[in-house]
């Protein structure tokens, strides 16, 4: 069946304006947040209900057309990059908070609901939704589920996977299936756990039950300025070693501070070679004691200035520099690559030095902004695409940084996902058997390989292969240990 025939069928099953095939309209969806990868989809479907999502997937499955789900399109690894011969299923029309259940510490939302909105509607009941990716004002919960989104505060609170208890999903066959629920510990395999973070390769989430977290009694935010990243890294290690688990520990280096300062005038201490933002939250009695400890440890590790947010406005100001850092870097460099590698926290000073060496040797600038508490680096590799050779050099440095993360026992991605961008790095982190084993799950859900093909795995596995069965007598039988099996 051609895409034209599929369009006719989908227009009949939904309404005509929910199916886009006009080239100009399709171009709107050609990329996600990883904007230098662009593919115009063959068709865009804009379902309004879970049943419509299922109908679209069923139609695709029936004719063997691949499909890609997209939420707000803020992903940074190309997870929602369309397929040129495929259907892009946009879930942003499914945007209702279906039920808010503070007494059960749950909310049930559609996938197009914006992350921050869940916290906003929960606030009056004393709750919020803990995972807070930097894009939380625009990213969707469905996208968060696909990518297992993190955020600055996942150091203490965990990731999307720790905060989603139930899903309704459309399987790649087009069936609506429930995984998990509002109650804990659903019997059977934890398919919910496998689905979250599967980057749209196991189906499309159409309803998400999330855990709501009690708003903390107290939040205290401290900004500490150091002469360099070594000292800031040492302070981070000292805080963790002291048994303190802050809600967040973020670090920025001199270049990213310079960019943030130029962009949003956050007023960080002049001359800082690195700043740490440490946030503590919880019961007032606990936070007070821990805050003393954190301040002391920052001082002991060479902080030359510390500031404490006196109120919410000051807290927002401290965070503004950090949260604007990616965009701000655009002011000091026309182009940049964001990496998302993770290293053991204790290796931080050493890895930062080696990143610096690699960058210097290639004549490339790297701004470092990262979640120091959990070792999740976000090096921003700067380049100017208009200057011949710069982009290639930036990519070389970017790849070298990923190799460093693997060398130190870390990961190629902490929260952005593998997508199309890092699929070719997967064999550096995993063996063929590791990847084959992951794809056993894929084969169980999607034997036809239609759900978001080309993402995560550098090479698809053919499903339905069975390991060879042996014939003849068993070794134990042959050797006389056993008579018969």
């Amino acid at each position, binding site marked *: 069946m051609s895409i034209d025939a599929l369009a006719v069928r989908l227009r009949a099953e939904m309404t005509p304006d929910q199916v886009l095939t006009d080239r100009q309209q399709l171009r709107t969806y050609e990329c996600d947040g990883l904007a230098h990868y662009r593919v115009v989809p063959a068709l865009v479907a804009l379902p309004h209900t879970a049943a419509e999502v299922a109908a679209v997937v069923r139609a695709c499955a029936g004719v063997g057309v691949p499909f890609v789900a997209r939420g707000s399109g803020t992903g940074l690894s190309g997870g929602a990059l369309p397929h040129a011969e495929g259907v892009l299923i946009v879930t942003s029309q499914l945007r209702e908070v279906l039920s808010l259940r503070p007494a*059960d*510490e749950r909310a049930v939302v559609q996938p197009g609901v914006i992350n921050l909105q869940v916290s906003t509607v929960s606030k009056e009941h004393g709750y919020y939704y803990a995972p807070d990716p930097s894009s939380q004002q625009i990213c969707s919960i469905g996208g968060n589920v696909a990518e297992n989104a*993190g955020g600055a505060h996942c150091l203490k609170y965990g990731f999307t996977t720790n905060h989603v208890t139930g899903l309704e999903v459309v399987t790649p066959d087009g069936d609506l299936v429930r995984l998990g629920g509002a109650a804990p510990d659903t*019997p059977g395999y934890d398919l919910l756990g496998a689905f979250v973070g599967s980057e749209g390769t196991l189906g499309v989430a159409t309803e998400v039950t999330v855990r709501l977290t009690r708003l903390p009694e107290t939040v205290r935010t401290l900004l500490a300025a150091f002469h360099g990243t070594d000292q800031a890294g040492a302070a981070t290690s000292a805080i963790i070693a002291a048994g303190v688990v802050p809600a967040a520990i973020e670090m920025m280096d001199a270049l990213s501070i310079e960019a943030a300062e130029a962009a949003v005038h956050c007023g960080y201490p002049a001359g800082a070679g690195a700043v740490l933002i440490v946030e503590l939250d919880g019961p007032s*009695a606990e936070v007070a004691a821990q805050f003393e400890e954190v301040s002391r440890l920052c001082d002991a590790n060479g902080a030359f200035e510390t500031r404490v947010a006196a109120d919410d406005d000051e807290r927002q100001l401290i965070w503004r520099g950090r949260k604007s850092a990616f965009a701000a870097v655009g002011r000091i460099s026309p182009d940049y690559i964001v990496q998302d590698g993770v290293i*053991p926290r204790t290796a931080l000073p050493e890895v930062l030095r080696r990143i610096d060496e690699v960058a210097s040797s290639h004549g490339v600038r790297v701004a470092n902004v990262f979640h120091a508490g*959990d070792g999740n680096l976000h090096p921003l590799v700067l380049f100017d695409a208009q200057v011949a050779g710069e982009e290639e050099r930036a990519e070389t440095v970017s790849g070298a940084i990923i190799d460093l993360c693997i060398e130190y026992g870390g990961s190629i991605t902490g929260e952005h996902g593998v997508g199309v961008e890092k699929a070719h790095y997967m064999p550096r982190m*995993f063996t063929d058997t590791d990847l*084959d*084993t992951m794809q056993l799950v894929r084969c169980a859900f999607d034997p036809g390989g239609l759900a978001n093909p080309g993402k995560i795995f550098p090479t698809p596995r053919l499903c339905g292969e069975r390991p060879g069965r042996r014939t003849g007598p068993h070794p134990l039988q042959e050797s006389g240990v056993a008579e018969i099996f």
Partner: protein
Amino acid sequence: MSVLDDLAVKAGDDDVVCGVPARFVAAPASTEEAAALIAAARDLTVVIRGGGTKLQQGPPPRDLDLIIDTRRLAGVVEHAAGDLITVVRAGTPMAELHALPGQQLALDAPPTATAGGAVSANASGPRRLRYGTARDLLIGVTVVRPDGRIARAGGKVVKNVAGYDLGKLYTGAQGTLGLITECVFRLHPVPLATAFVRATAPPTAVARILAAQLAPSAVEINAGPGASPELAVLVEGTEEGVRDRAATLARLLDGEVTDLPPSWWDTPPWPPGGLGLKLTGVLSAVPALVEAVTAAGGTIRGSAATGALHAGFPSGAPTGTPGLVDGLRAAATRAEGHAVVLTAPDGALDGLDMWGPVPGLELMRRVKDQFDPDHRFAPGRFVGGI
């Protein structure tokens, strides 16, 4: 000649799983040895045994040739204190992981249980309120697949979204997808101070605890027929913070602050030979679950602030069990949760539906078919006869 000859010995009288005797037992000492064993055992049905603390729970295997005992696969491979992680072999006793220097694996499981067993059985206890369950604490896993190939997923860093999270799939899989040989866990600091607050209070008081700003690490209930329900709350933190919070809690519940938990803390509520179930539900339905169990003459115990509880009944006539389970399952369904039978009096298991409805069962069968196409690993021990 083969690894099987080297490692497998004839099973003894104790090598029995839910009444089904095994023919052989093998105890590999490394991932590689386990892989060679499993590759050589490809015509055998297999049950994996760790500390054996939950081995006799659940239904019997349909067939059992070989028990793979993991207790030689023991030891902490790495404890990176500064990174708050540990890499351990699957047969390492939990006692060792509860007491790493200055840190702990905050997963409640019996001291003689093994790390791999606790993960496979998805063990959890009172502190799940604060620290989550095995699925939240396991950050990396090495497994030997039923075809004998070694696979790893996750890694040694807590924050990691590279590839599918197979650790979650193996958590609670009861050994039906292969053998876990190594686990990487995130650790937590040992709290500077702890205190318990105990009170006689109805389950509805739990909502008041959660509404207050006290961040408890555990809220446990214990309720039996004809006695007032008890609550016990664990608070952890700094000396000052714990003192303040415990005092506030004691006022809130009209209870007392103690150093030690009550004797029933983190113990199953069923007597030997009795009927034991796991009951789950949403928080607002916990009082109804408590009522359902106590009205039926049972004891209910567990994490009242997460909705994961256990119910126990003394061994009565096996003929009464199906009706009792049906009633509890109806209550759990109303609570949006599940009633799973863990153990039952002799003779009561035949024909008993141990799980009730399982959402996503068809997909689970397909996962099993992919990982273990010949259904050799713990056949019949899992949901839907998997």
